[in-house]
């Protein structure tokens, strides 16, 4: 039973446009949500997070939105750059991290 789901295994976006990555969760005990970015042959690196008491957190080109009623969060990247091409993992915490299966983002030049 997957508690954190990323239903899109891949996403392609043109450079300069917005990338929107989505994530759904089922466990209402999750109170902290994170996005990680992973390049090939490297470990995941932390990108941005949001607490359940907020509905938006912004850091430069990256914004995470949380909709608790829908148990949904999304990561917006604008403008997208070719260097953003990577696998993005959504993770949720109720004490320890549970990861989604990832979305491969490809930003086309």
């Amino acid at each position: 039973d997957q508690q954190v789901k990323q239903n899109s295994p891949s996403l392609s976006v043109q450079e300069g446009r917005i990338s929107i990555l989505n994530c759904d969760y089922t466990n209402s005990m999750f109170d902290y949500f994170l996005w990680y970015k992973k390049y090939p042959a490297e470990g995941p690196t932390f990108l941005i997070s949001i607490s359940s008491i907020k509905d938006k957190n912004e850091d430069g080109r990256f914004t995470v939105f949380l909709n608790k009623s829908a148990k949904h969060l999304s990561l917006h990247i604008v403008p997208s750059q070719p260097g953003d091409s990577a696998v993005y993992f959504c993770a949720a915490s109720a004490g320890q991290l549970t990861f989604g299966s990832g979305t491969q983002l490809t930003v086309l030049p």
Partner: protein
Amino acid sequence: EAGVVQSPRYKIIEKKQPVAFWCNPISGHNTLYWYLQNLGQGPELLIRYENEEAVDDSQLPKDRFSAERLKGVDSTLKIQPAELGDSAVYLCASSSPSLGQAFFGQGTRLTVV
């Protein structure tokens, strides 16, 4: 500041052989995690340590997997004997109570042939 260090980066072994992975967490991080990542999947927790105590090992296949974190710093994860299905990337991560996120090492890619 050095990140989480794992070794080896790659390991190829024959089935039924033993294998061990080593992890050195970020200095001062009390919490250490071992994750398993299969191709096309997200990391799945195997075991979590708070200092030297394993506080969650419910997902660790204890018939063949073992882990230790002596002195609450470095950790080793062992598989004995390895099976073909153990081929995956083994990730180590660490965090401290003041942090919400975990920091990951580069991982060890294990191939069992």
